[in-house]
């Protein structure tokens, strides 16, 4: 990678979503701004309080885990900021086409990796990348999932750089979470700012569960009209358990744990009070490692023994397909532009964040020399874990990461800190700017659909660039405008 010019001066100004450079609200925020000005802080405070009460009444919670082993976590009310983030129709058009392109390429890539491996034979990506990847699942090589689709649900993280350009930060293809909060945020926002939904012509997101249900029905081996669908949860201690129950309820399907199911001669059944019921589609919210103790981790009690063999036979569909995680391995990420060009013959519509590979000695030394301005990430971690945030790091922590990287370079990547765009938030009685990102959700059923909106995550601490809810992030409703 070319090292010059990637790190600008230290005084770069983040893009502000709400205000233009002259400190006046951007056009699409005018209506909202006029209203806030007219009603004043007391009205905002009342709305914020109303939102709090509604979240509590709805029981919208998430679980935070500390550092302790065996920590069962603390359940918290979902943090919500009432000032919506607005995305214009032209901005959305670009995001939507970029995401469709990316998801299409990701699925072709997965089909190739678990099939012929043309992309490796053609020398586009190095074999070590795949064969040393923790999530390349040899157990499923040669199995072709229905219609070749692996990632029925993708939650792709998008950020906006200093110039306002939308960049892809991460592809989340395993069990991306957050969609229930996208919907709950909308429910709350409709309640507290109802008049704006018509004035602004905000596009709907509430149909996500029905889109997901339709996509899953389309995978049913017994046909879409005979689809028995189950949401497979690891149980109440999972940080996303709220979402598992939410989606099962919204779709009107069973929520089950591994122990509630059994595979008999390659057919998966749900144990019910009236006997065994055949299962056609499993929306699993557990990782590959735990999915089937017969072929993956034998000590897993969360999965369903024999489910992979049932899947191989085509008797059950698994959403997302096992093995999808290799495509969102952070060490694969830098190759995504090449992967898009290779399978689609197109230039990427949405660019990546520049990324340094720690296996490359020159990249590595450059990163070590500039650690205060870098984010270093462990490639198979998510949720903001296993990460060094250069600007806020201590010398001791930086030293620790140098050792970690040198011990296993394949396991780390680095990116220059991107000053995520900011947005006005209502924080304890004041309007203040906070950094944010966006996780839109992409469903791949009969075709690829991007739900117009997503989960906007906000770093609640002033100046912080970490938006993960597991690390104290908040959220906003995201309005995509129809025109």
């Amino acid at each position, binding site marked *: 990678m070319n090292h010059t010019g990637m790190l600008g001066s230290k005084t770069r100004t983040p893009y502000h979503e709400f205000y233009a450079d002259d400190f006046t609200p951007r056009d699409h925020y005018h209506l909202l701004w006029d209203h806030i000005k007219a009603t004043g802080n007391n009205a905002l405070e009342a709305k914020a309080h109303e939102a709090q009460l509604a979240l509590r009444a709805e029981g919208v919670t998430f679980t935070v885990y500390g550092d302790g082993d065996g920590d069962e976590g603390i359940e918290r009310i979902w943090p919500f900021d009432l000032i919506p983030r607005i995305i214009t129709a032209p901005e959305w058009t670009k995001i939507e086409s970029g995401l469709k392109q990316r998801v299409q390429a990701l699925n072709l890539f997965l089909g190739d990796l678990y099939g012929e*491996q043309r992309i*490796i*034979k053609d*020398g586009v990506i190095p*074999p*070590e990348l*795949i*064969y*040393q990847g923790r999530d390349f699942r*040899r*157990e499923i*090589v*040669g199995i072709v999932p229905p219609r070749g689709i692996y990632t029925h649900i993708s939650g792709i993280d998008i950020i906006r750089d200093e110039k306002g350009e939308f960049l892809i930060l991460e592809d989340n293809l395993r069990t991306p979470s957050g969609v229930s909060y996208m919907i709950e945020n909308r429910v709350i926002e409709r309640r507290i700012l109802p008049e704006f939904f018509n004035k602004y012509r905000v596009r709907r997101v509430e149909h996500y569960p029905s889109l997901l249900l339709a996509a899953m029905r389309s995978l049913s081996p017994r046909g879409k009209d005979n689809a028995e669908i189950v949401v497979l949860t690891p149980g109440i201690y999972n940080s996303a358990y709220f979402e598992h129950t939410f989606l099962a309820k919204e779709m009107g399907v069973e929520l089950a744990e591994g*122990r509630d199911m*059994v*595979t*008999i*001669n*390659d057919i998966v059944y749900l144990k019910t009070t009236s006997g065994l019921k055949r299962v056609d589609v499993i929306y699993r919210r557990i990782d590959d490692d735990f999915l089937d*103790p*017969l*072929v993956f981790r*034998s000590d897993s009690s969360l999965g369903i*023994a*024999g489910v992979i*063999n049932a899947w*191989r*036979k085509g008797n059950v569909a698994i959403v997302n397909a096992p093995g999808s995680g290799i495509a969102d391995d952070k060490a694969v990420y830098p190759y995504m532009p090449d992967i898009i060009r290779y399978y689609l013959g197109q230039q990427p519509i949405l660019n990546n964040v520049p990324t340094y590979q720690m296996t490359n000695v020159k990249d590595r030394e450059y990163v070590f020399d500039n650690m205060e301005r870098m984010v270093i990430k462990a490639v198979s971690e998510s949720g903001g874990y296993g990460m060094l945030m250069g600007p806020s790091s201590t010398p001791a922590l930086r030293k620790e990461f140098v050792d970690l990287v040198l011990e296993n370079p394949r396991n780390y990547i680095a990116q220059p800190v991107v000053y995520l765009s900011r947005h006005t938030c209502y924080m304890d009685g004041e309007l203040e700017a906070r950094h944010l990102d966006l996780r839109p959700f992409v469903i791949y059923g009969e075709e690829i659909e991007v739900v117009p909106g997503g989960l906007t995550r906000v770093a609640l601490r002033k100046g912080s660039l970490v938006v993960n809810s597991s690390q104290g992030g908040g959220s906003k409703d995201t309005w995509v405008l129809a025109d």
Partner: protein
Amino acid sequence: MRYLIEHETVLEYPQTVREHHIELRLAPRSDRRQNVLSCSITTEPAAELSHYLDYFGNRVDYFCVIPPHSRLVTFLKSEVETMQENPFSFEAVPPGEELQWLHQAVRATPSLNDYILHRSLVTPTSMKLAEAISTALPRWQRERPLLDSLLELMAWASGQLEYRSGSTEVHGSLVAAVRQGNGVCQDFAHLFITVARAWGVPARYVMGYLNPGVSAEEALTTHAWAEALVPGAGWVGFDVTHNLLSNDHHVAVAVGRDSYDAAPQRGSFKGDTAGTQPTVTVTMQEQ
């Protein structure tokens, strides 16, 4: 040679277990050196068997026993014919071109990377292995045929360990085996594989059977050896325990990156009891 192989595995539990799923890698493979004349697998309680070919090309037979049971038996019976072959009769690639040949083979078949890159407790990095061994590890002498270096490696590896039945755990650490100086056939094979991989030579683990008439091992169970990819020859078997190239006394069953991939039996069940040590009985008779 013609052999009749019988392989019985008995699992017994102090309390009943249920929803028992088993995968078997027991069916001998068919290739140019061995011909499977018959092969049958039966179980008790009786179960319906299915099969598939796994990533490594092994035939996997699998079944389930759902109702509660405290005993589960699997029984393989197979007749195999093995062919004698001169391991040195192949069109050799000149020593200077062997590395290039291997690179091309790996490029054409990317999955061969697994047999070079894989590291585990039983096939560690050469650095970890070197720490446990006082002398330098053998090297591939590029000016001579790779097969010569591999034969020297086999001789060296077979001298590093004393064969002692039951001396190490199945899938136990190779470094620990080398430190204590004795091991079983798995350890010998893993030691050879570990060094060959450090050379950049694809090497894999083979689980199979060895004619008891020529075996140094006491109780007859499954045997293990290694295979390395030799330019011009293909996969060549190295019985490291006995310091000889595999021959018509060997019947290969399953291959993998290490012993874990090629384990003959794997299972999962529900019940209030821990796993149990299987009782394995193998017989191999010359026909």
